[in-house]
């Protein structure tokens, strides 16, 4: 009898795993090009890229700017076309940036003039960084913090560990896992190149403990060859956050918002590692893998989108209506809402489309402490809201606002429906506005 029970339980587990991990990883399908792309040129304030004048004809893969700031990638044309005006945009991560319009031509693409120089290889950190920048590679999203910024920092401050996360926050959008399954070899090569260049002695690939072995085996074989460590982690949201992943694997305390390299660790995700590998083989980053979850129809779409495509075009292609829908970039609970003109590039690569929900009417705080119990960084979210209402920044500091990773779990569990995540964001905005970390704003 116990054996029978055991086999039944194994069957159940297998069925559950199959439902969450289909036999085959989804294929990333290309999207037809829109008429206009908005190619980001200045990320994180690096707006001094000297963009070629409007009206310039440009080939696929050509540089859009003659030179770019060191802290930024070199913007490349994802497709042949005519350059337009520079305009402000919002990325899928919620950041603002500058972008140049590119009116895509209907002519077939000519080979790019932007051949990467043979000297730009990965023999040294500086040349490796230059190669990555020149290939238009950049990643600046929650689970994979500013890659160029991290590499720039490594030049002055060496690291000892490289962590590549294959974790996905949402079970319905396993983009990193799909990349690892489809391009496992390339992901490992990208990681290997970066590790060698950055001088990381320890290289860790973090995978979900419940991940399908079929999905992970190509990557695991390549990792074994390179003698990389593969660590299985229970992927409970928000485990893929750099603060938590760095703490879990190295016990180093990374302040949210800081680059992991300040703690001697380089963190990137599978999509970034793939882009680095392709940069090394003279393939610039002109497309990015994207996953869209349509909550109304409960369908996930895995795509290969050209850099600079807007959410509006993407959803139109997927036939997902935008009326009465809310589009969010990145992890759902972080609640980063996107407008139709938000641009897909090196920011968040997962998109959630949900029905417009009724506004939640908050009740008074009943001190249930669920927000504290659920907080992965031991912040006191309810006290932060209290501090915001009292305009008391010292109180917010005592409540640990600096340690908040804005995962949104507090708002998720709060039975009173209090806007705890938004309170943290507002407190941070107030702090930025007054330029101080400790002084309370004057009335």
């Amino acid at each position, binding site marked *: 009898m116990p054996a029978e029970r055991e086999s039944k339980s194994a069957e159940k587990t297998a069925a559950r795993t199959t439902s969450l991990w289909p036999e085959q990883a*989804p*294929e990333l399908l290309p999207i037809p090009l829109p008429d206009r792309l908005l190619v980001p040129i200045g990320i994180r304030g690096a707006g001094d890229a000297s963009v070629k004048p409007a009206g310039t004809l440009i080939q696929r893969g050509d540089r859009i700017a003659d030179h770019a700031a060191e802290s930024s990638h070199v913007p490349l044309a994802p497709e042949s076309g005519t350059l337009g005006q520079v305009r402000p945009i919002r990325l899928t991560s919620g950041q603002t940036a500058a972008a140049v319009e590119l009116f895509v031509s209907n002519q077939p693409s000519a080979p790019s003039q932007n051949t990467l120089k043979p000297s730009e290889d990965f023999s040294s950190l500086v040349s490796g960084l230059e190669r990555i920048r020149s290939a238009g590679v950049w990643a600046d999203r929650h689970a994979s913090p500013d890659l160029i910024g991290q590499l720039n920092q490594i030049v002055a401050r060496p690291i000892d560990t490289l962590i590549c996360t294959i974790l996905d926050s949402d079970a319905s959008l396993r983009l990193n896992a799909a990349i690892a399954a489809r391009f496992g070899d390339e992901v490992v090569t990208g990681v290997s190149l970066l590790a060698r260049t950055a001088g990381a002695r320890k290289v860790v690939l973090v995978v979900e403990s419940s991940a399908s072995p079929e999905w992970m085996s190509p990557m695991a074989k390549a990792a074994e060859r390179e003698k990389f460590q593969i660590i299985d982690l229970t992927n409970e949201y928000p485990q893929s956050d750099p603060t938590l992943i760095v703490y879990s694997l190295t016990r180093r305390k990374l302040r949210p918002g800081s680059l992991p390299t300040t703690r001697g660790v380089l963190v990137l995700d599978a999509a970034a590692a793939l882009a680095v590998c392709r940069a090394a083989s003279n393939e610039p980053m002109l497309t990015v893998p994207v996953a869209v979850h349509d909550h109304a129809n409960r369908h996930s779409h895995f795509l290969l989108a050209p850099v600079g495509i807007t959410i509006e075009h993407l959803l139109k292609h997927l036939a997902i209506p935008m009326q009465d829908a809310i589009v969010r970039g990145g992890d759902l609970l972080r609640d980063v809402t996107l407008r139709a003109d938000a641009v897909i590039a090196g920011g968040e690569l997962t998109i959630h489309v949900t029905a417009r929900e*009724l506004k939640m009417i908050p009740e008074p705080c009943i001190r249930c402490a669920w927000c504290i119990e659920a907080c992965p960084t031991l912040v006191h979210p309810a006290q932060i809201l209290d501090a915001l209402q009292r305009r008391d920044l010292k109180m917010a500091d005592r409540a640990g606002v600096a340690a908040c990773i804005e995962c949104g779990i507090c708002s998720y569990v709060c039975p009173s429906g209090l806007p705890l995540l938004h309170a943290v964001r507002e407190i941070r905005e107030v702090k930025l506005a007054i330029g101080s970390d400790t002084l309370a704003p004057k009335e």
Partner: protein
Amino acid sequence: MATVSAPPTPASSVSPLHSGIRIPTFLTLQILATLFPLIAGFAIFGWRAIGTTGVVVFSALGSMAVLRRVGWRGRQVRMWHCFWLALIVSMMLPAHLFTTVPFHGQVVWPVLPAAGITVSLLSWLLGGLGTQRVPPVVVAILFLFVLSHDLLTPQYVLRVDRLFVGDLLNYDPAPESLSDQNPWYNRSAATGYDALRREPVGDKLLAYTSSQQRPERASLTVQMLIRDQMPPLENLIVGGQCSTIGCGSAAAIIAGGLFLLLQGLIDFRIPLLGTLSAMAALLIFPIPVYITDAGAQWRWFAFRSHFLGWGTTVTFVNYEILASPLLFTLFYLATAPGLRPITRRGRAVFAIGLGVLCAVFQLYASVAMGPYIALLVIVLLTPTLDRAMTPRTLV
């Protein structure tokens, strides 16, 4: 197109950014947990218990319906919250109050609407939902206890063959011997009467521990108290002892508490550490090891006395724990979100303090009200504990 079906999402969730558990669900779960001891109380104390609860709840909801329209506080109160408070208050009252017949020469039924109105009025005064620091139910019950102590002393319990349907006030006028070692549920059916009249165990214990009891023979020891004057312990665990509606069965209280724990509504530290610290304090604090006409011999660490020993002292402690509303307080009152500290370490200290205070008040003041008074005192420390025990953030 590459599409993958997502795992099903809960259909009840309105917003994908929220778990869907809002205040009404929270309160409903708490109300469901109170049903365990409440139904046990209805069984043990019969239809008068149902009537008692009904009058308290209706009077509380009625008065709250009026108070909701009064001032800004009115907007803060919620009927579900008031319903829960009223249920808790009714569980702290004895069932014999539901009668129009004068009891010991006094009309007792007005106590019931008074309890309901008092709790809704206090809830309104203190700010309704999200009320902090002052427990309206405890204040209401202590207020009623001060006004009508004798009327609130439970004295009757139904016979086991008259569960639910029996009349609590149709009792055998001859007081039953407490020392009958046959548990309540094994008693043979009797004719003529629905209920038994019993002296509350708590009163007997308090009379001894406050050394007010005079020995019938040369001396009185704890051993003799347990052997001659205490009912079988099963009566306190399963049911069958006269008590308030909610405290009739320790097993039902624990079952309701476990339900709350499983639902994640309460922290295990408070009932666990509260009970353990109360037991430890009851073992340590001085009690009379024997009483003679000349006076009482008090001893700290009574279990070290050659009169008692471990076995007798632990049995005495068990009676103290089960005869008082300590478990009810620890599971249902002290775990209330507005009262207990918000941090885990704070809750641990709070629970230990509450347990020790319960022991002190039970031993020397009142077994029936000791835990409530202790709770009222310890909640004063909650803000300090919250400030002092704030956990350090991860980074």
